[in-house]
């Protein structure tokens, strides 16, 4: 069948600048570029191009420019190019339109409508470069009160036994991305960066590769519906265990790592035969109700002898507040909320862009609900899904999060350009792939530097903003919604966010 879909991008090559080095040919995993020996010229297959900018970035003479195809259908606010293209593709294949990464529509972001406060006169701002500024955060269940005894010499002895806690030097962790959806070198970079900076990286549901066990102190091991690679050593290896119920990019649906990607290495870590499809069921088949969740939480606590916090991650959905309350009452030490803009290696586009709710609203509702019920201390709240700057992190904390998970931002720091083609497994940046030729493109030694650079940069920015507010410990921002104001929001939106209007 002749495809009616036109190439999305056109490659323009400046032949005067091109030195025929063929870097573009080698770099493109989609075979977009080829060399015509007869005419000594480089040519393009425009239809293959995903606009990942790998060739343009590596072209030594900046001879390549990638342009959006100017041939658009007649402009139409409803029947957009994306809609028409999608329909045509489906007509030609009869399939579900797949995509990668997070929602690319502008209408679901609230962060940019929230503004942060600063001190003027009535209390002093604090200079974060020279005075102490504390970002340290502990994730885990806290009691409502403590029993302590003091001796005559002023020594204080703690009588209460605290639940296990994770110590974060910055309230930012790396969110779950399975080994398989991303490469081992990406995992190595994440694990080492987390360990170097004093935070955590989440394995995702594909298990933990043996060579990474040594970073266990900074690893959160995930237990998802497929239970890939889940065994006693794996549970013991991490600092915390996360039960994945859902994911913001695809609430309510499972996953599927195609057999082609289940290489020898992946097979070993996931503990499934090579070449078989790795299917993650939509639900956890031992959790059909909240009491079942409690059963799994305590199974994991038993398996780890109550030494590790157990997180429960859900996609932010309409009644997230009630669900979160149930999760806390079921004994989770932390609730992870993944908003509608959260990323993915592969999801139906229709689900990604239409199912779930923005993290801002879910977070605000959950934090308030847990406070109303007097159980906010019992669990930490972690926000994920669409955190793209340090300001987003700080705003999330002010709304009530203890910490944030980032994943897309981490991948971007490694080179990802959010071309949204992760599901092809051909990531030219060597990230979302298990192809050994491509995965070499991430050098963990460099990767760790880039990730640590990101953590440091964001942490410094958070300190700058905190200092501006005259606050020198992150716990004084946490849940402190008075440091936020909303702009361009309706009364109802402000009410759900628990935030006042600017000028108020």
């Amino acid at each position, binding site marked *: 069948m002749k495809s009616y879909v036109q190439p999305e991008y056109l490659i323009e090559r400046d032949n005067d600048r091109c030195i025929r080095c063929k870097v573009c040919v080698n770099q493109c995993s989609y075979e977009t570029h080829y060399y015509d020996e007869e005419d000594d010229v480089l040519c393009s297959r425009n239809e293959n191009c995903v606009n990942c900018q790998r060739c343009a970035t590596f072209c030594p003479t900046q001879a390549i420019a990638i342009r959006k195809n100017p041939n658009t259908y007649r402009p139409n606010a409803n029947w957009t190019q994306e809609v028409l293209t999608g329909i045509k593709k489906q007509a030609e294949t009869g399939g579900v339109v797949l995509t990668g990464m997070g929602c690319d529509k502008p209408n679901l972001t609230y962060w940019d409508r929230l503004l942060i406060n600063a001190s003027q006169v009535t209390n002093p701002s604090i*200079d974060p*470069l*020279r*005075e*102490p500024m504390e970002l340290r955060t502990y994730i885990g269940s806290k009691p409502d009160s403590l029993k302590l005894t003091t001796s005559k010499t002023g020594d204080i002895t703690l009588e209460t036994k605290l639940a296990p806690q994770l110590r974060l030097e910055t309230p930012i962790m790396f969110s779950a991305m399975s080994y398989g959806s991303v490469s081992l070198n990406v995992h190595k970079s994440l694990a080492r960066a987390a360990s170097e900076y004093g935070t955590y990286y989440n394995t995702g549901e594909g298990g933990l590769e043996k060579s990474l066990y040594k970073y266990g102190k900074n690893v959160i091991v995930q237990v998802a519906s497929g239970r890939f690679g889940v065994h006693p050593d794996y549970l013991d290896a991490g600092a915390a265990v996360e039960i994945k119920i859902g994911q913001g990019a695809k609430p309510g649906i499972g996953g599927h790592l195609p057999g082609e990607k289940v290489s020898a290495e992946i097979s070993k870590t996931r503990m499934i035969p090579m070449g078989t499809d790795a299917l993650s069921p939509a639900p956890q088949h031992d959790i059909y109700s909240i009491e079942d969740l409690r059963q799994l939480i305590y199974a994991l606590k038993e398996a780890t002898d109550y030494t590790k916090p157990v997180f429960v991650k859900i996609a932010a959905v309409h009644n997230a507040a009630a669900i979160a309350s149930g999760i806390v009452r079921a004994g989770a030490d932390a609730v992870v909320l993944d908003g509608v803009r959260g990323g993915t290696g592969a999801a139906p586009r229709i689900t990604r862009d239409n199912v779930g709710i923005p993290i801002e609203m879910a977070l605000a509702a959950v934090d308030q609900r847990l406070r109303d019920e007097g159980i906010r201390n019992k669990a930490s709240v972690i926000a994920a899904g669409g955190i793209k700057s340090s300001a987003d992190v700080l705003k999330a904390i002010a709304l009530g999060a203890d910490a944030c998970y980032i994943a897309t931002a981490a991948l971007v720091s490694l080179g990802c350009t959010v071309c949204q083609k992760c599901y092809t497994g051909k990531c030219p940046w060597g990230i979302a792939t298990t192809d050994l030729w491509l995965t070499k493109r991430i050098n963990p030694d460099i990767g760790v530097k880039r990730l640590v650079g990101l953590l440091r*940069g964001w942490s*410094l920015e958070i300190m700058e903003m905190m200092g501006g507010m005259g606050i020198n410990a992150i716990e004084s921002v946490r849940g402190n919604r008075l440091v936020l104001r909303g702009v361009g929001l309706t009364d109802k939106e402000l009410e759900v966010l628990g935030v006042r209007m600017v000028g108020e």
Partner: protein
Amino acid sequence: MVINDVINHTPENLSITEKTAKIDATGMYYKDLNSLLRSLDANGIENIEIHNVYGQRYIGTDLDNHINIDIYGTPGNDLGSFMKGTNITVHGNAQDGCGNTMDHGKIVVHGRAGDLVGHSMRGGKIFIRDDAGYRVGIHMKEYLGKRPSIVIGGTAQDFLGEYMAGGVLVVLGLNMKEKVHNARFVGTGMHGGTMYIRGDVRHLGEEVAVAELNDDDYNILGSLVDEFCSYYGLDAEKILQSKFNKIFPVSSRPYGNLYAY
């Protein structure tokens, strides 16, 4: 003229003999006291004694000539702020902000001082016999011929020499029971100037390093300690025999690598 009014109609709380004036500041509002000081200064008075001082602010601010002021009691906040050359002696304790943004002159306190001694001072000298509070010498700086100095006889509290950009800050620890100054974040953000500290410091900022004193250091320190001892009748030689630590900034641009461009 206001000035003539003051001189012609000497108030009950003021007595003048030749170049010396005596003020009883009991119940006097600070504005009235300072305006009286300015009048006396403009009329060639060289020495002023102020008695019964209880918290009047800004004493010594905006006086044009290099007069001597002796304060008996507890002067209020911002003693000698923006001062241009007056010599102030406090027979008692000073409160917060003593020598704030002072440009020139001298403050000698026969007692202790509160927080922010010498905040942003650019010139002149401050001597405190006993302890001082938080943030002593914060952002003091030097420029061309101006080089401010502060000597604290006792110890000082946290953030000593914070942001310090120039000048000399000496802490003698004369009254300490232990050999260690309890201050935290000493020299945090320091990017100029020098501190000489007798005894060890509990906690230093990230931007400073500690060194032994060289001959130049001892010259600077020696003359300041001599002057300090001359006010309080102490033995400089004995004080200088103890071990001093020199605290200096590692870089004049400690935050050069902080930003992404």
